[in-house]
């Protein structure tokens, strides 16, 4: 018992240290994260997701960011995130202990190493990271003995669905397992509990959006848009396969993925207990890669783009699969000390090296070229008010909204779609609303790169935007910079 306590302490410390690599002074910005931070802050100012800012993610991520921002800004967000990692670690370790798993510290440690693998995660506080936590909570609940197990499973499914829709399929194999295994609770009642759990997430959300007259916007942006546009780009199966291979390889997930996959399959061949659960864990692990198979990920330049952090939920999928093999495979190599030792080293060595490399080469956020750019330094001296700054297709500069605590003049804080899809905004009406909003608020500054406008897929929209920009704005010369991204509204004659 004492050893177990020390092991748990060691695991918690490892988890905390790995999370500390991403604490605010070292958490480098990428556009999605900056958008989420802005949305959390915007909600605290009374704005409503989808109605007052456009995005295609399900709503929970905004509320998590709202909670984080309200409880201490970036550090609040970090505490929530690191707290969830600690909770997942502790629960998973407890689950491993309860099942007498050899090396009970291995799956939780592997989960943390993979979750904080900087070659995959690109920072923290993104939707797929939260779904990785939820996946682990879901599995720990499934293996627990609580009376409210099925209700909690439904609740966690709801949380996953409203955090990142495409991660819900990864839970389906376990839901089937929960429904079709022998259980004292009748199947009908299990389904009822699951539904009740799901509704306990769905109903408050629907009510909140209904009360704020934004239910239509929620439906169109977070669901319809994804089905009709985001997931409809074609990519051949071969290209998907090559993408998976490349991402696993570049992200240092390859060995962990291959070892768990091979052990999973060989456990099925042998005389394992709970083969159904191992099959579910195998299917769940593969389904955590659903986002890759749902979208083409073309970046508008006719070349496939691999979003490496879409693979973050594999951290949970692989850890869970490994747990099922370690816990229920009777005759596999994991039950011979000398046979399992090489696998343990193999699983952790490369990821530990990556963590060490990252930990010993941390970059300070204050040294980020964007955060330190002449444009933002200029704005720090000429602090804009609400609606007086608009960031257009310069995603990393979106951090400026939160830094200056100002609202965007347009609901289109996220403008990728003009450069991704030919059929997005074909008549330019959406772009015109952006121009109208800028005119209405008499917005002083725009951060944009006029040279990047060829990234518009639709030439008419490009002409419209360039004509608006050059007729109403002029570049602000930047000291020590030959090119300025900052445009200022022309003074009225």
């Amino acid at each position, binding site marked *: 018992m004492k050893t177990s306590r020390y092991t748990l302490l060691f695991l918690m410390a490892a988890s905390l240290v790995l999370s500390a690599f991403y604490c605010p002074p070292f958490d480098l910005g990428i556009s999605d994260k900056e958008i989420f931070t802005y949305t959390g802050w915007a909600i605290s100012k009374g704005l409503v997701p989808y109605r007052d800012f456009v995005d295609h993610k399900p709503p929970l991520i905004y509320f998590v960011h709202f909670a984080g921002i309200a409880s201490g800004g970036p550090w609040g967000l970090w505490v929530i995130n690191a707290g969830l990692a600690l909770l997942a670690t502790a629960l998973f370790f407890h689950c491993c202990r309860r099942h007498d798993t050899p090396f009970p510290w291995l799956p939780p440690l592997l989960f943390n190493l993979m979750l904080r693998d900087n070659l995959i995660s690109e920072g923290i506080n993104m939707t797929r990271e939260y779904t990785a936590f939820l996946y682990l909570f879901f599995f720990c609940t499934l293996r627990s003995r609580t009376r409210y197990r099925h209700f909690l499973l439904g609740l966690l499914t709801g949380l996953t669905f409203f955090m990142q829709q495409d991660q819900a399929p990864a839970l389906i194999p376990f839901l089937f397992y929960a429904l079709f295994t022998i259980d004292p609770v009748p199947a009908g009642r299990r389904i009822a509990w699951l539904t009740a759990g799901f509704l306990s997430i769905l109903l408050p959300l629907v009510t909140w959006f209904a009360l704020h007259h934004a239910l239509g916007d929620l439906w169109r942006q977070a669901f319809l848009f994804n089905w009709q546009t985001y997931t409809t780009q074609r990519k051949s199966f071969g290209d998907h396969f*090559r993408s998976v*291979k490349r991402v696993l*390889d570049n992200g*240092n997930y*390859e*060995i962990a993925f*291959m*070892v768990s996959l*091979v*052990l999973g*399959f*060989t456990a099925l*061949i*042998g005389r394992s207990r709970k083969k159904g659960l191992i099959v579910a864990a195998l299917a769940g692990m593969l389904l955590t890669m659903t986002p890759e198979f749902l979208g083409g990920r073309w970046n508008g330049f006719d070349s496939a783009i691999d979003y490496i952090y879409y693979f973050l939920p594999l951290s949970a999928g692989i850890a869970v699969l490994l747990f099922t093999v370690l816990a229920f495979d009777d*005759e*596999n*190599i994991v039950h*011979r*000390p*000398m*046979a399992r*030792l*090489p696998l343990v*080293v*193999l699983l952790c*060595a*490369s990821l530990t*090296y990556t963590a060490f490399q990252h930990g010993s080469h941390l970059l300070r956020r204050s040294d980020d070229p964007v955060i330190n750019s002449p444009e933002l330094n200029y704005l720090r001296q000429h602090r804009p008010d609400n609606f007086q700054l608009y960031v257009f297709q310069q995603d990393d500069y979106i951090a400026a909204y939160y830094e200056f605590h100002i609202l965007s003049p347009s609901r289109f804080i996220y403008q990728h779609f003009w450069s991704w899809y030919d059929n997005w905004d074909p008549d330019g009406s959406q772009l015109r609303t952006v121009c109208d909003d800028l005119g209405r608020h008499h917005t002083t500054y725009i951060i944009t790169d006029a040279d990047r406008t060829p990234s518009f897929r639709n030439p008419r929209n490009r002409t419209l935007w360039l004509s608006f920009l050059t007729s109403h704005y002029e570049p602000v010369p930047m000291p020590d910079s030959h090119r300025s991204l900052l445009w200022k509204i022309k003074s009225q004659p």
Partner: protein
Amino acid sequence: MTKKQSYGLLILLGVSLALSAMYCPPVNPAYEDTEFFRYCGWALLRGQVPYRDFFDHKPPLIYFFNAAGVALGHWGLWMITTSFALVVTGLFYRLCCRYRLPYPWVLPLLFNLMLRDNLISNGINFTREYSTYFVMLFFLVMMGRSRARHLLLGFFAGLVFFMQQEQLLILAPFFICLLWEKDGQSVRIRLLHWAAGFCLVALPLIGFFAARRSLGFFWTDAYLVNLNTYIREYKSPGDHFRAVKYILDAGNYEIPFMLALILGISALLSRGSQTPSPEGRARNGGKPLVLASLFALPLSMAAEWMGGRLAGTAVFKDVMGYFLPVSASVCILLFSVFAFSGDPAFTSRRIQLPYILLLCSSLVYTAFQHATHLTRRNYGQDVTGPEAAFLDRQSLSDYQLYIMWDEDFATYYNQRKILCPSRFFYQHFWTWYPAWDPDHHDLESIAASLLHHHTTWLLMDPADLARMKNAADRDWWRNFIQTHYHRISLPGKPDSNLWQINDP
């Protein structure tokens, strides 16, 4: 060998042949080093002497292999390398069967997959590919029961040394292991046999160069240059480590390497049983061999440890092909573990299954990807463009064209069967080392050769002058070119890279 094992052997040989076929002449990717070796082989057949008539810093065996390949015809080199792969595969499989490995086909298959991994190999017919065969043959002889075992060990050590010097280091742990082996022969007799075997390779080579009065060139170019220049660039241990990690990862060697290393260390830590092996030795008696194989693993990357590989641009250049011998050291280590560790954790059929899947799956995928994306090559028509078209119309003879720093165009010598006017076919060193040729003595020798042969055409992109690391050399060469040659205009390329000698 049982009937089942015979079928296994046939399948393995078929796989080895198929993997080699991915590099047969119609689809073998062009690479500057192999083209240079081919030229050297052809020049050797024309009576030229390595080092004296063409400069290089490789040991001499590669030129003789290429001469043999060129003499055999267009497919000759491919037949030589494929035959080596087949022989090693067959003998290795027989060894695995003899030691009753649960899956005797796995390690020979792994060897072939790693050897033909296109992410590492860059093609065929490289020095490190041949040294890999010789290392494997050395190990197979070492595990064999031949009466001439020690003589053959010395012979293969000689082949390795005269093919690629630093690869000899891989064999050092095995030689040490052999010295401690309980054998019918005394240590002194063993040493004598090794020396005799080594001399079987060394003496004919030395005799060849001595007869042609080029022993000094041989010593200077193949050994002194490497000791004084090639291995002198500094690279920090951290950068070496990152380079190794990067190459193993990018070359798809990561899983076999990690698995072999970890299994090797685990086998050392394990308690071996006393089950006698087919050789009559106690199985745990193989720990020294496992240890030697473990040492050989990093030593097979000696090329990385010995050189900084700064490609003259202050950016580290990781040469993937230098890691090809890892294919041999990984397989040898795995064999030592599987054959000699007494712990069922390494020898049980059930336990080895996941290892096998892990070892082979990624490399099988790489081979499949390569095989399904082969690029056809029309050898003889590779060198194209206005310059090549113009030169083709000139009916060039030997010594009438000199190609400077255009590695792709240098294939022209081979394809049009003309000799290079200078011994400096290979000119990388001027672009790599500031201390190379500081008094432009070698550049002067090139200039003298061009003037001696009245070489009409010089192919050189003037922008490449900036690649010369030594400013004095650069100025001297520019001055020479501008004095004796003039750049010509070609249809479709007014600023061509072709220079014509000035009229006297």
